[in-house]
């Protein structure tokens, strides 16, 4: 019997059907050479299987895992978000509708003051990631796995595969900016935990278009190069709410990322507090009055899926394709007591058309400067390549008309922080 026969290998690997099997068994019965070959193939197969198993077990793997690349340890530990879990949380919610046309305020800047005095303790945020509430124990495990570093509460990059959706609470406090400002003016860099980036960003007024006739709010989405991490994209979500109503604290903007475009994302700011408990979502019973002209500015840092450069002949097609394939969809969901369903729904979708930060609107540049300033003050692991000098430049580029001088004040504050950092 010829040992150089693929049939022998197939026999050793149990790939033959019964009749072929017995034929080979008969043919090799008096061939020690063939029998030895079969035995060696069997040994080889066993050794290969065990080495592959060992390799997988020990993680001796050349390519990085998807999850590792995106810094999302949730995937392996927590598992994917269940749609039902999110719905379950939303279903807990009730609502009130208070029409308060008489309190209509036309400037957006005065609103944040109202909110701080009325409501919003830090732990009353809406569920930013629904899964946090759905699976508290694993979430704690994740925090415990964070390594030797102290608790930072920073939101990590989240793989779109594991959680395509994220939500942004509607109501933001603005204590933090004044704390930071007071501290720096007194000659001290502020303590890390006093720096709340979303509060700092929303301390400043921004201009967003008025809603259209049949919508209560305008949602504005922009995508530009992330200035502190140029291979990432920076998504700005800007809300301008014109209808004055009281909404539940867990009203929010729900964002769904497109897994065909986005590998992972990170909500900037909204850091968890050490004291924040997992059941805080259930405490979201208070409502906030949202005055007309309320604006909210939020950033996501997005890791795009790397695109294959299109072959030259298909270039136009691929541009058209990328325009038709959105990066994300954002939905404003206003909830009021006594009303199970969302009362106002505004939805927008945005595609990434490749805009650079250099040509971003000035409001966006300024808000991004504030965000990076906050990350540098917090010594965030996500602060990227930005420096205070760049923060200064972006803020100056984004200063705009600055009628009330807030932005000039910020620029001054960054200069002072630069001096403090050096000393």
């Amino acid at each position, binding site marked *: 019997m010829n040992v150089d026969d*693929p*049939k022998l290998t197939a026999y050793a690997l149990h790939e033959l059907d019964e009749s072929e099997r017995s034929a080979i068994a008969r043919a090799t019965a008096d061939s020690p050479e063939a029998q030895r070959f079969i035995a*060696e193939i069997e040994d*080889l197969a066993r050794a290969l299987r065990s080495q592959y198993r060992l390799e997988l077990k020990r993680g*001796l793997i*050349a*390519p990085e*895992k998807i999850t590792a690349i995106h810094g999302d340890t949730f995937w392996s530990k927590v598992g994917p978000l269940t749609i*039902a879990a999110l719905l379950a949380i939303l279903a807990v919610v009730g609502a009130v509708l208070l029409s308060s046309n008489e309190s209509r305020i036309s400037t957006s800047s005065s609103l944040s003051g109202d909110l701080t005095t009325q409501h919003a303790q830090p732990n009353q945020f809406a569920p930013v990631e629904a899964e946090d509430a759905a699976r508290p124990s694993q979430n704690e495990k994740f925090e415990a796995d964070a390594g030797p570093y102290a608790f930072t509460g920073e939101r990590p990059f989240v793989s779109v595969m594991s959680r395509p959706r994220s939500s942004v609470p509607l109501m933001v406090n603005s204590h933090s900016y004044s704390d930071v400002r007071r501290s720096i003016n007194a000659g001290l860099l502020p303590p890390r935990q006093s720096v709340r980036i979303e509060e700092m960003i929303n301390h400043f007024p921004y201009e967003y278009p008025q809603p259209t006739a049949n919508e209560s709010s305008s949602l504005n989405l922009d995508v530009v190069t992330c200035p502190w991490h140029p291979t990432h994209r920076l998504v700005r979500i800007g809300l301008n709410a014109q209808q004055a109503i009281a909404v539940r604290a867990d009203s929010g903007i729900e964002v769904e990322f497109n*897994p065909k475009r986005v590998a992972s994302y990170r909500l900037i700011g909204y850091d968890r507090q050490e004291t924040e408990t997992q059941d805080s979502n259930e405490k979201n019973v208070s409502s906030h009055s949202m005055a007309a002209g309320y604006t909210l500015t939020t950033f996501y840092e997005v890791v795009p899926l790397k695109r294959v450069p299109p072959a030259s002949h298909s270039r136009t097609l691929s541009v058209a394709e990328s325009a038709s394939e959105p990066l994300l969809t954002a939905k404003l969901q206003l909830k009021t007591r006594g009303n199970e369903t969302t009362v106002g729904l505004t939805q927008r979708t945005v595609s990434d058309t490749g805009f650079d930060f250099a040509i971003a609107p000035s409001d966006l540049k300024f808000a991004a400067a504030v965000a990076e300033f906050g990350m540098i003050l917090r010594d965030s692991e996500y602060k990227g390549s930005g420096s205070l000098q760049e923060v200064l430049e972006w803020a100056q580029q984004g200063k705009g008309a600055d009628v009330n001088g807030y932005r000039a004040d910020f620029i001054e504050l960054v200069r002072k922080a630069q001096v403090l950092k050096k000393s």
Partner: protein
Amino acid sequence: MLSSALVGTTSYPVRSGRTAKRDEFEEIFNRFEIPLLQYTQRITGDREQARDVVQETFVKFQRNGALRQQDEPATWLFTVCRNAALNVCRKERRIMYLGEEVIEVRQSEQPMPFDQLQQDEATGFLLRIVATLPVRQQEVIQLKFQNDLSYQQIAEILQTTTNNVGVLLHTALKSLRQRYAQVAGDFIPFEPKPK
């Protein structure tokens, strides 16, 4: 299209079923993620592209409900990954389509030089020898011994015949045996054969 999947109003009753499905998906993801990344990177020669391809494959897998249709998702996953990886290569014009041996002509995927092996005898010595084989043989070895696929399944993935898979594996194992014997002179054989 993006949003249509998430609109819904029901709550608890759906949960158990969906959770079960998610768990099943997660299990499959955990089981195949690394093998698919290895497999795809071998074809694209590029880690980032491999990652994109694998991620998109899982997205498709979820969307297409492949979970329900097939008991054994391996064939589907490897097939889709392989096709996507070949598309990436083709778009970049890094390979020419020369029929069966298409992958082997790829320039960026030169097998590891055989004489480097001896410097590196740590874990997985055999797997390092596998890395010196032609890419197509590496593919069948990985599919067969890492993922326990049958000749039939491998043939589907490689879009070839089971006979051809048999020949590829036979050739691969023979080379592996020879190369092992060649470099393993100073090593303990994987299983000494009593004479």
